[in-house]
Every structure is written in structure tokens, then in C-alpha cells.
């Protein structure tokens, strides 16, 4: 979902009013906390809620981006920063694009005397060699240690971009599937970004993070002034019934089956909408 401009959400049936209210308070500065951590099981509506919060936030007030940390493309902090650079817009993207050009583009390092090194720093490349009837893969590094350099440059540019934001605007990061983030990504997020926010840096940045796993770093006391930790609950039976019968207009007989099966595991909004879609599809086909 990286960088998605969400379309209006289909079959809206879970309002998550308390969570949205809390986020609203954070976004408009009523609440001092600036890190909003959402925890819930798979399929309980974290991604939906992130999308909803994204849509709730008016574009005029902020620069915002949704990043799926479980995506294959977000392999490390460099990829994460590149995503931010690409999608966030405003001065942040401008600063970061400039940094990307200088750190990942043409290398032309000049010393006092002469130009010593030229070369294009491209991405690392996987090469397949066919040896003796079998394949052999090798990674050709364009610049193995340039990675740390680029990350530092991009981080600096990100911070510079935040500082360059007009006072009326803020930046909001919506980070989905935190539990799937690779260690380098997670380390950068926790050790640099979120810890910086905790310690009073980046005053115009808000982070909304969703995960199926507990947020270990929140165990320390010093986070409580900066971070809100909220568990998403499953749907109450009444809401399920209302959604099934009134919003989707689906047969009650199927609802009984669903209720019977899902009651043991809690009513997951995602599962419920999946089943509703399938039954709708089945009914439509049968009618045709």
C-alpha cells in the first residue's frame, strides 16, 4: 500500500470511533503524544483503520504517507526512506530527492588536487551464471559501503525537510505491518526516528504504527509521554448482524453459520467482509 492515495473505503461498517477520536486529538495537537501504536490480530482492521485515518486527515494540513513495512520492497531503512522521499511530497520529498541524487547518482569525489573516482552507483545486482549444468547466483555490488552513507544522507535530508515545513503543516507517517519489518528497518525506526520523537525532536512529525505483535520498546516508562498504545477489539455481535443484514442485505441463514464459526475466535472485520463478498458473489452468480 506504499504511497497509496486511498479511494473511499468500500462497505464501510466499522467506525472505530474511539481510535479515530484519539488520533484526531493527536493530529490537531490537543494531545501531547505523537506516536500512535495500534495493535491487533491479523485481519482485525489495522490496515483499514490506517487508511481511514489517512483519509480523515485533510491534505491541506499535512504531508502524509502510508508505508507497508511488510512489503518486499521495504527491505531496509534505505528503502523505507526512499519510499518516504517518493511519496510524502512537499519540502521533505524535495530535500530527500536532492540527497538521493548526490548520494546515489554519479559519484564524483574531488580532492584538493584531482578528481579521483568516477562511477555510477547503481543498485546491487543479482547475476545468474550457468556453471556445469547448474545455476549459480552472485550479487554484484556497485558500492557495498555506500549504503550507510546514503542512509545517513537521506536521514539528514528527511530531518532537514521536516525543519523546512511551514509552521501550519505537519508530516504524518502511517506505518503498517510493523511486525513484518526487517531488523534494519525496525532498528532505524525505533532507534532513530521514534526515539528522536520521544526525546523531543521532530515536533511536527506524527507516526501511526500498526502491528500484530506487542511493541516491545514501549515497555520502558519514558515512552508513555510520547506514545499511545491502543488494542483494537473484535466486532460486537450486534455490529456483525447490522452489517450483514442491513448494509450488505445478505441472507440471515448464512449469518448464523458465520456467527457460529467466528464466535470462538472473535469477529474479525476483515474475515466478515471476505465472507460477505463471497456470499454476495455466489448469490449473484446463482441469480444470473
Amino acid at each position: 500500500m506504499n504511497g497509496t492515495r486511498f479511494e473511499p473505503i468500500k462497505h464501510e461498517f466499522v467506525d472505530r470511533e474511539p481510535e479515530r477520536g484519539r488520533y484526531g486529538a493527536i493530529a490537531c495537537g490537543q494531545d501531547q503524544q505523537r506516536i500512535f501504536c495500534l495493535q491487533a490480530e491479523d485481519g482485525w482492521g489495522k490496515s483499514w483503520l490506517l487508511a481511514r485515518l489517512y483519509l480523515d486527515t485533510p491534505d491541506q494540513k499535512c504531508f502524509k504517507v502510508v508505508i507497508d513495512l511488510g512489503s518486499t520492497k521495504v527491505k531496509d531503512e534505505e528503502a523505507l526512506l526512499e519510499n518516504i522521499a517518493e511519496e510524502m511530497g512537499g519540502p521533505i520529498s524535495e530535500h530527500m530527492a536532492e540527497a538521493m541524487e548526490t548520494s546515489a547518482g554519479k559519484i564524483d569525489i574531488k580532492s584538493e588536487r584531482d578528481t579521483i573516482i568516477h562511477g555510477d552507483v547503481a543498485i546491487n545486482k543479482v547475476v545468474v551464471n550457468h556453471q556445469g549444468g547448474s545455476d549459480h547466483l552472485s550479487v554484484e555490488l556497485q558500492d557495498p559501503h555506500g549504503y550507510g552513507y546514503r542512509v545517513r544522507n537521506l536521514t539528514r535530508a528527511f530531518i532537514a525537510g521536516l525543519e523546512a515545513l511551514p509552521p501550519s503543516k505537519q508530516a504524518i507517517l502511517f506505518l503498517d505491518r510493523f511486525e513484518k519489518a526487517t531488523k534494519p528497518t525496525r532498528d532505524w525506526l525505533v532507534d532513530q526516528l521514534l526515539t528522536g520523537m520521544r526525546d523531543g525532536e521532530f515536533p511536527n512529525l506524527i507516526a501511526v504504527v500498526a502491528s500484530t505483535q506487542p511493541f516491545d520498546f514501549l515497555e520502558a516508562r519514558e515512552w508513555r509521554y510520547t506514545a499511545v498504545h491502543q488494542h483494537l477489539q473484535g466486532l460486537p455481535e450486534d455490529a456483525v448482524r447490522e452489517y450483514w443484514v442491513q448494509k450488505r442485505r445478505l441472507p440471515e441463514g448464512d449469518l448464523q453459520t458465520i456467527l457460529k464459526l467466528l464466535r470462538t475466535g472473535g469477529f474479525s472485520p476483515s474475515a466478515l467482509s471476505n465472507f460477505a463478498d463471497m456470499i454476495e458473489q455466489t448469490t449473484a452468480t446463482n441469480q444470473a
Partner: protein
Amino acid sequence: MQTSQPAPNPYNDAMNEIFERLPVHVQDVLLLGAIPHVLDAELAKLLFPEETEADIKIIRSFSFTSEPRTGQIEYHSLARRYLLGLWMVRDPDRFRRMSDLLAREYRRRLETSPADSTIHASEWLFHNLVVDPAGGMSLVSNLFDELLESRELGSAERLLHLAEEQRAWIGSQSVWLDYFGSSLAYNYYKELNQTAIEKIIAEQESSLLAANCLRLLGRNAVRKQRWADGRDFLLKALKICNTLDNAYTRASVHMDLGDLFQNLVESAGGILVEARELDTPFRILYYVLSRGPLWMYRLLAERVNWLPNLYNMNYQNWVALHFLRLALKNYRLAEKGFKQLQNRRGQVEIANRMAGLLFALSHTGSAERLCRNSLKEGMVKNSPYYTARFESILGQAAMQHKNLETAHEKLSNSLEIFERYGDWENAARVAQNLGEACEKEGKAELALDAYRKCLESCKNSRNGLQQTETAYRLEKLARKPALSESLRQRIMDVRRTIGSLVFMDRYPGPVQEAFHRLTRYLTLPSILLILLFTVAIAFGAFISVSFITGESQVPYLDPVVWWSQAIFLFAWILLPLLALWGYNLTYALLGHFVILGLGFTKVDEAQPNLFVLDDQAISQQNWAGGSGQKIFWENVRTAVIDDRVLFSRPMTFSSSILLHDNETSLLLPASTFRYLELEKEVARQLTDRRSPAQIIKNRLRILEWSSLISSLLMGVILAGIIVISQDLFSCYGAEVPQGADCPEANRLFYLPILPLSMFFTSLIFGFISLVRWLSANWRIKKASKL
């Protein structure tokens, strides 16, 4: 009897109920669309070629799919997991065929489009696992290792996540995933579960997986400086690779073996003697004399997990040289393997390691050639980092050739890149070399700049050791006569920024060169001195005995006397060598048995390599800059200063056992380089703070040089006293007529007196030392109870 029930999964149960009701075509489309992680138009054409558009529309109509980017459809993980599970039950053969189609497509993308090649390669291997689990896993392992070697850890972790998705499908091959997990943990510097890995090795005997696991254990042992274990693991891995004829893993294992031997030497203090050690007759003599101990020592050093400090023991340098040559041999074999595989990354890595090694071995010309050839490689040209690595070696070589301008240029260019890329270890090393080059050029101002950069890099890499060395160099620079006062002041200002004092136990870094020179100049005089000393003592003893017993009665012309004196002399000449050898042997055996007996396995981890004293505490750091335990001055109740470095380990253990209180006791195991300063500084810190701590010096002097010499002298005196007592042993005198030969029994009488008396005096000295040591231990124990 209890049976394990599968965990209830209400989602799957509900899906089973409802999915079956969907029209067959819709079911089919949903199942096919779930196979790739991201469904795009090209993949859709492959999966459902007949009604591509209509089928995509069907998929889009379900709310468990989303389209984060235009034309890229993704399923919700919950739904996708369920559908992939369904394939295994419904139609595994078709799933295999479809996966094959996708694998081919991703391979095509990998070969045609350089962008996102890691993602395409990972997806190719992901689908290929379904088609051919065994062969596919071998390829996954290949890419996984390559990604780890190139520090693409995030991509490696993603590849592992992908392979994990196929765990249920790949059956027995899933054991590889446990190895990948461990391998990733190793690269993230986490503790390995050695038992679990050993279990895999036992189960997968002589397979590629076993070889990989052995390699991982070997590298882990090397990281923990358990050299012998590392060598055993790696050699076993190599044996399996040779049997399986797996060129990639074989080359990697050779590289690891090379790293092992090089690390072993570096962590033991580096190489101090040049390769051309046999260039003078004296060195040849020394070499011949020390050959026996050398062989024994080499055997020992290869088989136990430590190689003691190399300083002051020149024959250990030959062992170090031997190890470096072994490293070189392994690097060459690895290079050959990587060349055959056309693995350019591997070749560049090896070339870099080999160049550094050749330079350390004083094969400067070969190192330079290798660097120049490597710099022509496209991959090196495109990588400022690799360029800097090779250029910095060339810079050092230029400095050796006294081509200071070139050295300056190459070193400053490399420094700039290391600083930009945050490789602080290399930056510090190069900055120091640059400072030295500037000093030699007579450019004190530039030297100061370089040393300042060096200090910054040391700070970033937390290398307190090199900070101290730089501080020392700044002091030297400030003493140069031709400096302006303001510059001298600035140099001293920079010098004063180093607050902490650092003391070292092992010294692998920049002081190495100073040691190198020192040993080069001192080795020969030391040998001569030892020879002269022993000869003087022997003749002195001989003459004193002759004098005391009456000159006329000494049978100078008797060949038996001459031969026996010669044998004594030879024994005395060898004595210093044999004493050291015996000392090391005893220590090796004793230390090893103590370690085995007490069940300590992490011997070297517990050893501090250097100490940093600051206002608040004394802390231990290893030479790579990692800090260890920090002991605050106010917590110190007992400061124990152990004796010689060679006794440090067993004595640290025994002291720890005696003390039972490590937190409030300060153990300084080892006579470090600058040992006395360390001792004084600790005492000063404790006294200044009016700490109630007791300082106890724990010394076992039995085999110190001073004790050895005292024993020898006392032996000579004792022998003299015995011989004087002619009444007790009336050999000479009135019974023997003037001018007559001394009787056989009497003539031989005084020959064993010297060694016997020396032996007895040594025993006495040893006993005294032992009593002192025991009493010190008793005092430590008493002090710790206060």
C-alpha cells in the same frame, strides 16, 4: 496418552464452509491469483490467459484484495495464506505447473531488467521452491549467502520470510529455514543456538546443509576467538564440500579459513617479524635453536583456543608467519574457486584481503601489483569504497618506498571516502598513516589535521587504543624543534582532548610498526646478550671454582673436564629458550586443564584486551572497540593485580573463585604493556578518591627473568660454598701429591655441583614465591569479606 491437536482456526473453518459455495470458475481465479505476491497484468496473462481482463475484475471485486499501485493487486495475507494452503489439498500438480510458469517469468525479468533484481531473484526462487524443493533450496541458500556476504541483510531477511511461506510445501527441506534463521542471527550479532545447529549437522550428515551449518559454527567460533574449534568446524565443512564438489561453498570455506588464520594472528598482537627472518647468521642460529620449541608450540597453538601474546617471544612470530602463510594459501584457493564461478564479488573480496595480507608479510611488491590489477576491475572502479580500500594499501606502500607525495595523495583520498561512508575503523588507520606521512614530509600543520581526524574516527569507532596511540604521536610532534609556538600550543590542545588513559594487553594496531622496529633492532643484541651472559656466568663459575680449589689442581688439559664444561655451557645457552618453552608448555597444559576442569568455555571472551581508565570507572574494551564490563571506582573494594600475562587466565579464574565477588573487586589480569603505569594509575585513582579498597599485588615470580637470574647466581655462590667446604668433601689437598693427576672420583665431583645447587636454589625461590602468592590470595579472600 495425549495427542497434539491442531490449533482451532475459525477463519479457515468458515472459509471452508463458504469458499466451496463460490462458482468453480471464481474459485479457480481466486486460487490462481493468490500464487504470486503481487499480481500484475503480465502474470495474470500467464495464469489465466483466456479471459484475463474479466478474471482480474473478479479478483478486484473481493475486498480482501487491494491495489496499492495501479495494476498491482495484492491479497490480504489472511486470505492468501488460506488459498495457498488449499492448493496443497486440491491440486498440487497444477500448483507446481503454475509455480513453474511464474518462476520462469521472474527469471526472465531478472535477466532482462536490472532494476529490482534482488526482488525478482527472490520471487523466482520462491516459486522455484514449489517446482523443485531440493534444487530450489540449494539456490535459495546460494543467494541467501551472497546477500549476507554483501551485507544486504534486509534482502536476506526478506528472502527468508518468502521461503518460510513455503515451509509446509517443501517438507524435509524446511530444515534449511532453521539454518537460515541461525545464519541471519549470526550476521545480526545475536547468540547462536549451537545445540540446534549441531542437531541439524548430526541429522543431515555429509550434506550441503551440514557443510553450511559447520561453516556457520566455524565462523562463530572464529568471532569468539575459539580458533581450534573454528578450524575443526571449517575443515569438516571443507571435507563435505570436496565430497559434494560444491565449488561455491568450498570457496567460501577457504575464505573463512583464511580469515581465521589472519584474525588469529591479529588478535594475538599482529606480526612483528619480517618474512625474511633468516638473513643473518645469528638469526639462522636462533632459528635452528628455537626450531624444536617452535614445532611444539605450533602444534599446541593450532590445537588449543589461544595464542598467547606475541611480544617478546620471537619464535612465536614464526608461528604467526606460518599462520599468515596458511591464510594466504586459503585465500588463493578461494580466489581460484570464485574465478571458476565467475563470482566477481568474491574475487574482489579476496583480492582485498590478500593485498592486506601480502603487505603485512612484507611482500610489498606483490601487494601493490594486486591492488593495481584490482583497481582496473569494473566493480572496484564503480565502488568508491573498494577503490579506497585498495588505494589506502597503495598509499602505505608508497610511504614505505619513501614516495611521500604519492602516499599523501592516496591516503588523503582514501580517508575522505572512509569518512564519507562512516567506515571509522579504516578512517582512523588511514588518518594515522597520513599523519605520519605529513610528519615525514615536514608538514606539521597537515599532520595535526590528520591526527585530529584520526581522533574523531577513533571516537566514532570507540577505539580508545588508537586514541592513546595518536595522543602519543601528538606529544612527539609537539616536541619537534622547528615548530612555531602557536602551532605547538594547538597540538597540545588537541592532545589534551584525550581524557582517558588506555592500557593495552594486546596490541594489533598502529603501535605494531614501532614494535616491529623495536624487535628488528633488539632481537640480535638480545640474543648476543643472552649468549654472552650465559658464557660469562659459566666461565665465572668455572674460574671461581678453580680459584677456590687451587689453580694448580685444576686439570685444564683433561678432555673430560673440557667436554663436560662444554655440555654445561651448551645447556646454559639453551636455558633461556628452554625455560620459556617449558614455561609456555606448562602454562598451555595447566591453563587448558584449569579451563577444562572448571568448565569454562568462553575463555577468550572473558579476557579484556585493554583497559580504559576515566574519572568514573575502569572499563574493559576489546581491540575492536566494543566495551565490556565497567567498574565504578566507588564500587571497588579490592584491587588485585595479577602477575605475568601468561598466568593471567588461570589466575583470574582462581581469583574469581576465591573472591566470589566480582562486582566489587577489580581484577587486572595481566602485566600489560605499560603495566606499571596501569598499576600506578589504578592506585592513584583509588587513593585520590579515598576508596576503602585494598590493592593487592598477586605475583608468582617463580619463572620471571629476575628470579631465573637470581637462582643462577645463588646457585653459583652455593656451589662455591660447597666446594670451599673441603673438610666435608676432601678431594684435594694433602692426600694428593703435588703435580699428580686428580683421582677420577674427585675430578668428577664438582661437575654436578653447579646444576644441583641451581636446582635447589630455584626450588627455594619457587617455594618462597608460592608462599607469597598463597598469602596474597588469602589476603584477597579476607579483603573480599570485609
